[in-house]
């Protein structure tokens, strides 16, 4: 049975030990002393403790302070930090109870707390903080810069006997390889890796002999290590001029031929023999398969990416699951997700066995070219493996990033299936259009517009009466007081409202009869105001 209470000074040693065991970087507990105990903001009445049989098994810290939320606006805040539960007591709701212990309306009111913030692993945020405490992700413009000062740790690890033995066991083909690769990057010292008939040697010396010189940025090198199709990614990186490779033809050929082996080898070297987290720090994005729960972020990403477009069904997690995940020709492994180093989804794609890319979407505020290339690279790889004949993708015409990526991957623009639209109820459609233009039309007078429609089908009223003016569009009831009378036909009015025909075009083609004629400019102005401006886009998933 767990007991939950507030921190007391006697708990310091036990909490220090618990924190040290949970976060190994807490420098033997000194860091906890500095961060909490000696912090002028430390308040024991907002540190929660969980104990079982008198032994502390969990703790949660809050630090009170001031937080700037905008230029000239600071509010009182709480920073949630260092939540720790002993391994044997996890998944029993201890963290949940700790977080809720002092989270009361009265406490926030008494202290005047307005904002509560936290820096958390995105997976934990998704699983615990967001559902329990309602946290949402903050839009940040913070950038992280990175430089490797020395390859010492990598060189030491590679030179270790057991490391060499492991490599030999794992890659028997190394016995036949004689290759020296010299890496030249701006954000790290030079690195030479020599593979000589089964032995691997790393050094910071500049290679002067017969070697392959690879020049580029660290992020591209590491993306090569992570990609599923290294040969293609290598060619793309060369074409994009992100890396340059020099060397004799025979050595270049040997490198290309052994690309997969070298990739696997470097992956081990980089992950095991470099400072902790190097791979994550330098590689901006990685790709993985869909995981349950991703649909919430995916639906948000889709709606955000196409927020300026019309013509598609907005996504809810349920709709997306049905539309993509449950589609009969989609395998789970064909739903690919690009995540950044905080596991936040930056793009995704869904492809069917037939080769239709049902959806491909990326965060337009991120490095779109990299995300789209990563997705297309992996999609092509998947489709080639399953023996699909072709690939089809829909994208907005203005999306230069997807357009460029498609060109790079050898796609060609092809006629798109045509979308057609028809109005079922003008009486409700016209006010909707006016609503979307609210505040964009300046007028000093109200007009009562009477539209008589010719050739109307049976489900459409042949008379539309509305008041258009300073308050937008409203239904009117008295046709006797109409100030503008218009006669047109059903198709012309539909084309005008959807922006397929301009009001002037309709007038010059004698599709509009206006009474009195001096109200023509006013009518043209009203029609232009009502006309839909948004461009429409539909992904293949909406079509099929």
């Amino acid at each position: 049975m767990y007991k939950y209470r507030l921190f007391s000074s006697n708990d310091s040693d036990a909490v220090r030990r618990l924190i040290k065991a949970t976060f190994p970087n807490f420098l033997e507990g000194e860091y906890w002393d500095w961060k909490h105990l000696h912090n002028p903001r430390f308040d024991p009445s907002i540190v929660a403790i969980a104990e079982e049989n008198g032994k502390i098994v969990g703790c949660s810290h809050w630090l009170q302070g001031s937080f700037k939320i905008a230029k000239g606006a600071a509010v009182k805040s709480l920073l949630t930090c260092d939540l720790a539960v002993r391994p044997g007591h996890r998944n029993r709701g201890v963290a949940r109870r700790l977080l809720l212990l002092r989270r009361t309306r009265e406490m926030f009111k008494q202290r005047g707390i307005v904002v509560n913030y936290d820096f958390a692993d995105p997976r934990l945020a998704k699983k615990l903080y967001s559902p329990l405490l309602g946290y949402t992700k903050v839009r940040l413009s913070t950038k992280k810069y990175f430089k490797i000062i020395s390859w010492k740790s990598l060189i030491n690890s590679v030179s270790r006997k057991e490391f060499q033995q492991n490599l030999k066991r794992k890659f028997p083909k190394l016995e036949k390889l004689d290759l020296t690769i010299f890496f030249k990057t701006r954000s790290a010292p030079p690195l030479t890796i020599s593979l000589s008939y089964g032995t691997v040697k790393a050094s910071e010396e500049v290679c002067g002999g017969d070697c392959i010189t690879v020049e580029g940025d660290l992020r591209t090198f590491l993306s090569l290590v992570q990609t599923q199709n290294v040969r293609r990614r290598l060619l793309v990186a060369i074409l994009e001029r992100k890396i340059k490779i020099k060397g004799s033809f025979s050595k270049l050929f040997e490198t290309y031929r052994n690309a997969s082996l070298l990739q696997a080898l470097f992956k081990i070297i980089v992950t095991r023999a470099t400072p902790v987290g190097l791979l994550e720090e330098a590689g901006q994005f990685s790709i993985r398969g869909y995981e349950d729960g991703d649909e919430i972020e995916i639906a948000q990403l889709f709606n955000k990416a196409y927020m300026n477009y019309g013509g598609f069904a907005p996504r809810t997690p349920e709709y997306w699951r049905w539309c993509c995940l449950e589609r009969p020709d989609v395998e789970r492994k064909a739903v690919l997700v690009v995540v950044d180093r905080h596991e936040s989804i930056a793009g995704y794609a869904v492809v069917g066995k037939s080769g239709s890319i049902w959806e491909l979407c990326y965060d337009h505020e991120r490095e779109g070219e990299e995300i789209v290339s990563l997705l297309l690279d992996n999609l092509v790889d998947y489709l080639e493996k399953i023996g699909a004949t072709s690939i089809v993708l829909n994208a907005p015409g203005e999306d230069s990033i997807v357009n460029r990526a498609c060109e790079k991957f050898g796609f060609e623009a092809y006629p798109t299936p045509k979308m057609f639209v028809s109005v079922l109820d003008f009486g409700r459609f016209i006010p909707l259009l006016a609503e979307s233009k609210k505040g964009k039309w300046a007028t000093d007078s109200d007009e009562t517009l009477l539209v008589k429609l010719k050739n109307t089908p049976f489900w459409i009223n042949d008379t539309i009466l509305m008041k258009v003016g300073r308050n937008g569009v409203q239904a009117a009831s008295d046709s006797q007081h109409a100030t503008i009378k218009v006669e047109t036909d059903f198709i012309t009015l539909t084309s005008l409202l959807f922006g397929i025909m301009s009001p002037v075009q309709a007038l010059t083609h004698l599709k509009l009869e206006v009474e009195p004629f001096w109200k023509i400019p006013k009518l043209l102005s009203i029609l232009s105001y009502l006309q839909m401006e948004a461009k429409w886009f539909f992904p293949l998933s909406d079509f099929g």
Partner: protein
Amino acid sequence: MMTGMDESKDFLYRTLGDKDQEDVKRLVESTFEDFLNGKYWDWKYKLNPNFDQSLVGVAEKDGRIIGCNHWLPRTLKISGSIEAKAILGADIAVRPEYRGHGIGKELLLFMRSSQVITKKLAVISYMFSDPNLSKSLYEPVAGYVSAPSTTVSYVKLLNWNELKKRVNVLNQEIQANKEKLEKMAKLDLTLLLELPSAPRLLLRLNNNRIEVDETHLKNPKVTLRSDLYTLTILKKRKGRIRNLLKALLTGKLKIRGSLMDLFRFYQNLWLIEEIFSKKIS
């Protein structure tokens, strides 16, 4: 359940009933080849969170379902900030022997007398269609106009497997057809296709048969450089000469070869048309 009767031809129009689902599924499957043996119908309609059985219209004759029209209610974004209740008009199918009797048109009109209109459940309807069919049927009957779409489709051919299957069938047809055999008797032509969005392909047209090669591409007699879309236009018999000239003049098609081989290629365009007559992707 709503019903309507076309007395002159004894067609009954009504909404879908529980017992009709299998019949409708079979009808849709036989009309659209991509319906994956009914799996696709189940997913698209039965498992769809928005599916409403009363929005599927069927045409019946002597107790047998001969046509259907599906409507799917959806929310549709019409501008950056506005969403509207909409209907996606999907999968309209009529049995081949009953086509040309106006059943498609009656189904379209029948759906518009449904509760979607009377109960004001939707503001607009939309659909995806072949532009010619839209012009002849959907626009005059249901008032559809082309939507202001900026969508671009991109396509890439990964291999020529479908074409290879087609060539196998065609070779058998040639062997069984004297007229075709005679036409091919003196033919000796190798044609290299270079399309930016497809792997290179060599067609050998000799010895009364067609061979497809994706690896040995040397010494073609005629080289054709174009794109997939232009190729689709060229395979159409109607207006082929005009389309061919237009593609050559606009630079969308480039043909290289000796004058004699080019003449031979032109003479045997019927064979190219046969090869590309089915779907290649």
